[in-house]
């Protein structure tokens, strides 16, 4: 029963509606230690678990992918440059170049419309059109889109005389759709008439190439009739880059580069920072003061500028990757963050009784650090690791993008972006794939970090 006095000591909080208590995921009767409890909480967090599954599959994609997808990331498929993602692409086998000499093609020959001789492929497109009796000469244009009017025919290819009512186009043909337009003009250059025709081009491969790859079993024969052989080319599920290299193989190899840099650098600088912070806090006093002042100075260094400066400083010339130096610079410049975090935690821990009793029992500094402090800050270390990795991935991408990180021919996701942006307007997949990999990886690690923070129930800044 409450006494009369306590009725007057109601505070405003007593009149707030009761909050619905969220059911704890941990069964109170079950006895779990800290790690088991945290793991259980993490498992109940769908976002964190999804991220964890994604990270595991990503690492296996980079590490074990090459075992399944046995394509050399450096091999160039010159028949498929900058190909969009495709499977089982077919190609037509053509003879080595024989110039089109259609002596018997002069004259009308009953042609009614502009037409294209089948098959049209990337080696040559053959056009014929009816003779216009008033025409003095013809102009041939090629466009990638449907021409929108008389000023929009696209790329001028050639002019032919009035007797020549045929043309063979061999200029930089790509396996795509083209719109050919033939213009008839009179002696004064006046436009008499024009006709447009649309055609899709097959990939053409040379006979020699086909024989070689068919023998090696890399290509498959699809059909052969009327002397025209069609083959199936090597598949590139994620397309190829501008040098014809398989994007999937490169993404695997690039992932290995990016992830190895991220993992090693983060592990090292979190370890160095933790040790530094723990030592500073444990020793305390003036030493702590000086040590943390120094850490403050290192934080004040402009990060990316010094990443670049250190690269130059270790004699890594432009055009060299210097992955070791990059990891070293990351460690040198990034440790103070972890040091501050761990120090603040150790400052609290060192005042506690279990440390005191360890000291009374004559434990040395290293013993206390390793046996008593380390297990208590391990959760913090794990959290800072999972936030450190994405920031290193982004740093690597940024540096590689401006050509001062991992440089070609070594693939990393950042350097692949740098190569991809050059042809981005025409072949977006070369930029999109590596940047999606970067983005999703960073996202996954960040979400995992959030999940870990909730699971360990730590108040981190």
């Amino acid at each position, binding site marked *: 029963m409450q006494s009369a006095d306590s009725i007057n000591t109601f505070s405003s909080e007593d009149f707030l509606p009761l909050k619905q208590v969220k059911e704890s995921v941990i069964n109170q009767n079950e006895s779990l230690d800290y790690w088991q409890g945290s793991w259980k909480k993490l498992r109940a967090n769908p976002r964190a678990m999804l991220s964890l599954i994604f990270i595991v599959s990503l690492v296996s994609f980079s590490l074990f992918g090459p075992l399944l997808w046995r394509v050399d990331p450096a091999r160039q498929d010159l028949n498929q440059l900058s190909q969009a993602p495709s499977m089982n692409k077919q190609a037509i086998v053509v003879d080595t170049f024989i110039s089109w000499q259609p002596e018997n093609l002069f004259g009308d020959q009953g042609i009614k419309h502009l037409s294209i001789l089948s098959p049209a492929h990337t080696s040559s497109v053959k056009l014929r059109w009816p003779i216009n009796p008033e025409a003095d000469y013809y102009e041939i244009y090629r466009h990638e889109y449907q021409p929108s009017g008389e000023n929009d025919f696209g790329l001028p290819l050639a002019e032919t005389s009035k007797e020549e009512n045929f043309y063979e186009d061999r200029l930089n043909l790509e396996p795509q759709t083209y719109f050919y337009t033939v213009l008839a003009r009179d002696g004064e250059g006046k436009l008499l008439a024009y006709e447009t025709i649309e055609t899709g081009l097959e990939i053409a491969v040379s006979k020699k190439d086909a024989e070689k790859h068919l023998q090696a079993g890399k290509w498959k024969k699809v059909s052969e009739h009327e002397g025209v052989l069609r083959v199936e080319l090597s598949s590139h599920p994620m397309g190829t880059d501008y040098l014809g290299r398989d994007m999937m193989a490169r993404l695997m190899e690039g992932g290995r580069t990016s992830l190895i840099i991220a993992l090693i650098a983060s592990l090292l600088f979190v370890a160095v920072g933790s040790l530094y912070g723990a030592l500073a806090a444990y020793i305390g006093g003036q030493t702590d003061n000086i040590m943390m002042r120094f850490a403050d100075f290192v934080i004040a*260094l*402009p990060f990316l500028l010094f990443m670049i400066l250190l690269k*130059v400083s270790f004699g890594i010339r432009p055009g060299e990757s210097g992955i070791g130096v990059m990891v070293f610079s990351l460690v040198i410049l990034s440790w103070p963050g972890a040091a501050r975090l761990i120090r603040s935690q150790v400052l609290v821990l060192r005042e506690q009784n279990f440390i005191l009793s360890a000291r009374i029992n004559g434990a040395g500094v290293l013993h206390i650090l390793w046996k008593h402090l380390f297990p208590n800050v391990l959760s913090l270390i794990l959290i800072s690791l999972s936030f450190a990795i994405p920031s290193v991935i982004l740093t690597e991408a940024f540096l590689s993008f401006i050509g001062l990180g991992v440089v070609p021919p070594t693939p990393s996701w950042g350097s692949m972006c740098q190569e991809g942006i050059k042809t981005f307007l025409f072949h977006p997949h070369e930029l999109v794939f590596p940047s999606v990999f970067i983005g999703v990886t960073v996202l996954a690690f*960040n979400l995992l970090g959030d999940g870990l923070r909730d699971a360990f129930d730590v108040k981190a800044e």
Partner: protein
Amino acid sequence: MKIFILKRCLYGLFTVWFIATATFFAMHNVPGNPLNDEKATSAEIRKNLEARYGLDKPLYQQYLIFLTNMAKGDFGISFTQKNRSVNDIIKAHFPVSAALGFLAIFFAGVGGVLFGALAAHYKNRWPDYLLIALVVITISVPSFVFAALFQLALVNLNLYFDIKLLPIAGWGSVQHMLAPSLILGLGTLAYLTRLMRSSLLEIENAPYIKTAKAKGLSESRIFFRHRLRNAVLPLVTVLGPAIAAITTGGFVVESIFAIPGLGKYFVEAVHQLDYTLIMGTTVFYGSYLVLMVLLVDILYGFVDPRIRMS
């Protein structure tokens, strides 16, 4: 307050000294003699450079010469560009970067406050979720991807409307600045949005808000006079790091949008191993950032009296 400012300034000065020292020893560590490089072939140039930097003198004297030059604001002569001093290059190209950076900060600040307030207003409803999702995507994807996508969008928009809405790259007019500075500020904008949202939600039930409500003030007045003012405060603290991020972010944005800023020059200087230009710009950028952080600190001291007390 005076003591607070004085302390901050002294600390800033120490930081600049630390940056200059680190730069000097980092560059001294470069293997080989930079003057033996094919870059500075002529004997006269070599002799002049040696005399100027005291390369024949012992290390500590070189260091002193370097420090006095930096203190005088003399950053030396470019290694690769004839008859051009590093000061000239900084003078010519830094204003471009600074203008771009400040516009980016402006976009980031205004956008961050606006979107953060929107997200907090629609807390746990779809506009909030949408904004948070956008923020997360923006933070996870590197800025050059957005720059490329933005350029692609501009090309298509310009084609579609058949007029030049905004130039795709280049420098010279206000229109040229809009797209790159927006991209440059995007990451900071996302970060500020998240911060603004959480800071608004934190003060949702603060006593002074309750008082304002109890007084019967209108929603908009409470928002502008009480919520907004207090929620914006923590945003000022991250302005310093934000300026640093935006300044270095300029390296990428300037080269994608073909802007003649100092960031682009710095990257080119590294590619050409123009040692003096690298040193000069590093120290200059470092001091600039320290100055900016200092100004933000002092500003924050003015805005929030609790800071200068502690």
